[in-house]
């Protein structure tokens, strides 16, 4: 697993992907920070977090599009699958690689909070809680996109589908409001990511929210393992 994790990280930094993703993330977060916090004269980072949601939607598919689709296309999966390493380890290594890059992106929020602390007292509980929320949300999205990547040989297809799924997740509340049947709407709203994410931005750390994102992550990583396993058997 460690070998795959290290290989993933070096692949991100050998190609332009890591730099582009980090640059875009830092640019927009900086832009929102200046606009909302410095311009709006507030210590609350929640607007910045909220706006970054869209950026994350687009960046994560880019980050994960190569994970399995490219391996399959280049036939390098043959090296992985015939090595004495289990599928779970392979999937976990790849997931952690993408998650590390995402973690690097999010670390910028700490810096913003420190910048604020020079001028006023930031609400550390809210800052850290939201950071945890963003990381958990990111983990879930990365797992979903890794799964999408395992379904196709084309990384463009993987990225486009990933972004579409991201948009659906983002507009979930609106979609739910369109469902006329009450119980279906209720059921669907149970998997509305934003419901679980919003609590973090208020500084509320609830077990339910944490468990939700962790389960989504685990579920899709498990699906990915199953897809790889199925490919072997078909």
């Amino acid at each position: 697993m460690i070998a795959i994790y290290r290989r993933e990280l070096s692949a991100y930094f050998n190609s332009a992907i890591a730099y582009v993703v980090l640059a875009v993330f830092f640019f927009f977060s900086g832009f929102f920070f200046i606009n909302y916090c410095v311009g709006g004269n507030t210590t609350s980072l929640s607007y910045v977090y909220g706006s970054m949601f869209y950026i994350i939607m687009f960046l994560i598919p880019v980050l994960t599009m190569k994970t399995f689709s490219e391996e399959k296309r280049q036939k390098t999966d043959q090296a992985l699958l015939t090595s004495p390493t289990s599928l779970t380890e392979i999937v976990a290594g790849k997931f952690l690689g993408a998650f590390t890059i995402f973690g690097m992106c999010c670390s910028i929020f700490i810096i913003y909070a420190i910048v604020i602390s020079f001028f006023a007292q930031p609400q550390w509980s809210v800052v850290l809680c939201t950071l945890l929320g963003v990381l958990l949300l990111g983990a879930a999205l990365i797992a979903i996109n890794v799964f999408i990547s395992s379904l196709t040989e084309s990384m463009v297809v993987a990225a486009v589908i990933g972004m579409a799924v991201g948009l659906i997740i983002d507009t979930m509340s609106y979609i739910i409001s369109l469902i006329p049947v009450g119980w279906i709407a209720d059921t669907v709203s149970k998997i509305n990511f934003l419901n679980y994410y919003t609590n973090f931005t208020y500084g509320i750390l609830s077990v339910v929210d944490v468990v939700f994102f962790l389960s989504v992550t685990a579920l899709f990583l498990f699906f990915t393992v199953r897809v790889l396993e199925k490919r072997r058997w078909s």
Partner: protein
Amino acid sequence: MIEVKNLTKSYGRLKAIDNISFSVDTGEVLGFLGPNGAGKSTTMNIITGYISSSSGTVTVDGAEILEQPRKAKSKIGYLPEIPPLYTDMTVRRYLEFMFELKRVKLPKREHIDEIMRVVSINEQADRIIGHLSKGFRQRVGFAQALLGNPPVIILDEPTVGLDPKQIIEIRKLIRSLGKKHTVIFSSHVLSEISAACDRIIVINRGKIVADAKVDELAGVLSGGQRLSLIVEGSPSAITEEIKLLPGVTRVKKERELSGGSARYTVSYDSDTDVRRAVFGAMARIDCPILEMKSGDESLEEMFLKLTEQSEGGDEE
């Protein structure tokens, strides 16, 4: 060392391989021969655990590939048809990655240096794989398969796309590997297999059509000896005369040559030697023999015969 039992792989109704069984002993170099699409790669992919079989078992050094995959896979070095290379890495980084992936327990730097020496890529160690030529990439793939000195090495068409000099080098390498490792390698080029292997398995349409030692194979199949002649004179008289000789089963005029001579192929029973008789007969009718060559059927012809036979069998 490797035990393959009743292996079948079906894709829907199509059977890519159909009830294959064979075993390979320690230190043996086994050639896997067959036309393209015969099921060679499929068989190798199943042995290495890349894909699963529909039924049947593969055991590598006592470990069943599906039941103890980690143990079985750690004993195999595999070079697939397309070398699994990460083109964004340097040769050394890639080999280090594969070294870790395979959990090799040897001193890392020395071992990788040694392997790179064996396949002569030490000068390319710090180059990016994507910039290497096909021959060097193939060798990097080779190096990857050799990492950790696995007891079993499986090579899928290792010489495709290489130039003649590289082919000879790879062949030598395979030969030298056979001393310490059990090697299976596939090819659709016969001369290559006969040069490097102890034993050949011929596979066609997913079935084994022959399994024999290289030197036995010719005897098993040819069912007789052949003589190739160039004789000057009237073709009909020459054919008539040779046909009458005891032991001769068939005479065929291959083609007319300049100066009134022609090439003939004479088939005869393997327990008689007709060369002297042919000489006598030609001297009697005053037709000078310009060339006489005896020889078994070539492996190429045998191979065609084998694969045609098995195809004919399918249609019945």
